[in-house]
């Protein structure tokens, strides 16, 4: 690990005052410390923001506000989250280990880097780690890689479970820019596809600091499910995951939300399937149709073709779980 300065700040305003050509914020450190040990992240200055950002989870005026520093455990076990936004709790508890959930912050979860094996192997080319060096995964070990939204520059997937639920529930990311302006980014626009800048994971302006995650009230409190399929039963990243939430009136689906992890460079919403489900009777046949519709345009790589039937099965299972609650 490269030596670095550690600056502790008490307010968000102080962060922009820390002058260093190569600075990074640190909260839980569960991803960043690991990246620093592997010399993938080499900051000159680390800014400890643990005392500068809120760790509260509050429900007021029909909005859930999750402070940037609220740990994954704190969010997953919050009474309002479990009652009104159970999908969030289910997704978080499907990820990482209890130790990591106790340490990891909410904003850090959004900003974590991909777990593509080539991103972690500094002896191989990787556009995300070393811009314009090439992508090793396209022709290499890509069984965990993307099946949608990728290009020839990057096939990495976003590793978060929490973010899949946030995408499904149309959250907003609130941040303060380097010149102290408050901004809000809708979750669907927060993470980005590789485009021509695969080294950037999201659209957060340079120097901006996430302060809160906001979720508006919704009717998805009764029928939700998070299905995560992975190499072992627990404590592994998703091969594919599905967050499903239904608003039901009787046996009819009034509104549906469907999103996936392990599919693309960003949490992936299945908008066509959501539209298809709206107004339909909740039967297995309808779910199978929705799953086929969702996955019809996916383009698997050399080693991840298995993800298509796996996704179809996961979507059907998640929707069935929603109804059987």
């Amino acid at each position: 690990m490269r030596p670095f300065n550690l600056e502790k700040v008490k307010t968000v305003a102080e962060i922009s005052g820390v002058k260093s050509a190569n600075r990074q914020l640190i909260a839980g450190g569960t991803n960043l410390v690991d990246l620093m040990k592997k010399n993938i992240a080499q900051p000159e200055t680390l800014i400890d923001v643990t005392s500068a950002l809120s760790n509260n989870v509050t429900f007021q005026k029909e909005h859930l506000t999750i402070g940037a520093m609220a740990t994954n455990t704190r969010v997953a076990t919050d009474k309002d989250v479990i009652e009104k936004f159970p999908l969030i709790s289910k997704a978080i508890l499907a990820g990482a280990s209890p130790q990591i959930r106790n340490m990891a912050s909410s904003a850090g979860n959004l900003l974590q880097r991909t777990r593509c094996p080539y991103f972690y192997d500094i002896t191989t080319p990787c556009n995300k780690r070393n811009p314009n060096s090439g992508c090793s995964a396209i022709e290499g070990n890509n069984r965990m890689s993307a099946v949608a939204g990728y290009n020839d520059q990057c096939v990495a997937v976003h590793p978060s479970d929490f973010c899949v639920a946030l995408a499904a529930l149309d959250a907003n990311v609130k941040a303060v820019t380097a010149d102290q302006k408050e901004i809000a980014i809708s979750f669907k626009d927060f993470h980005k596809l590789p485009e021509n800048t695969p080294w950037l994971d999201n659209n957060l302006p340079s120097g901006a600091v996430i302060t809160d995650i906001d979720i508006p009230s919704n009717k998805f409190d009764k029928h939700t499910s998070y299905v995560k399929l992975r190499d072992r039963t627990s404590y592994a990243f998703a091969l594919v995951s599905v967050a499903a939430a239904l608003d039901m009136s009787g046996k009819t689906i009034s509104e549906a939300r469907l999103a996936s992890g392990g599919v693309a460079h960003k949490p992936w919403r299945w908008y066509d399937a959501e539209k298809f489900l709206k107004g339909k009777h909740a039967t297995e046949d309808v779910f199978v149709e929705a799953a086929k519709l969702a996955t019809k345009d996916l383009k698997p790589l050399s080693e991840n073709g298995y993800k298509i039937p796996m996704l179809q099965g996961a979507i059907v299972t998640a929707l069935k779980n929603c109804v059987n609650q």
Partner: protein
Amino acid sequence: MEGKEHYSRRNFLKVSGLLAAFAAIPVSVKAFYQDVKQYLIPKKNVSRLTLSINKTSHTLYVDTRTTVLDLVREQLNLTGSKKGCDHGQCGACTIHINGERALGCLTLASMAQGKEITTIEGLANKGELHPMQKAFIECDGFQCGYCTPGQIMSAVACVNEGHTNSVEEIKEYMSGNLCRCGAYNGIVQSIQKVAAR
């Protein structure tokens, strides 16, 4: 005389001149190395920290890169917490920070000031083993023992959190601690035994 040349004034000056030059080299090489080092190798950043570990306050000089795991093992000789993967994947370094389980290998010591850290060494009470430590012995909760300190710290937290309602729940909430000997059944039994009290 043949041997006279060996002791000539010219030879003496040559040899002593060379020796003086050689003697000067280390000084100039060292100075050169120091100059280059400034540019090539970033300077270590050491600061004075006060940490509370197992209810004892320790004041130490610590490199910013030091993790809590390295600090307790290398500087305080508390070698109970183990370094397995050093990347947050195995749980062998599990400790408690403010009573909650966390990974020592991913916690920077400089960020742990003002927090109460408990390692496996802090679990026994006045020489008497913690009930979970006893249960691990009674239920064969280990074979080689390398993962055991982390398993026990995690198991204590698992019981405190109340995630002991079924074998499945215990396994899910202990999934951050790997055991390559496969002593999982004994570990689950140990947790059930303590939870039943």
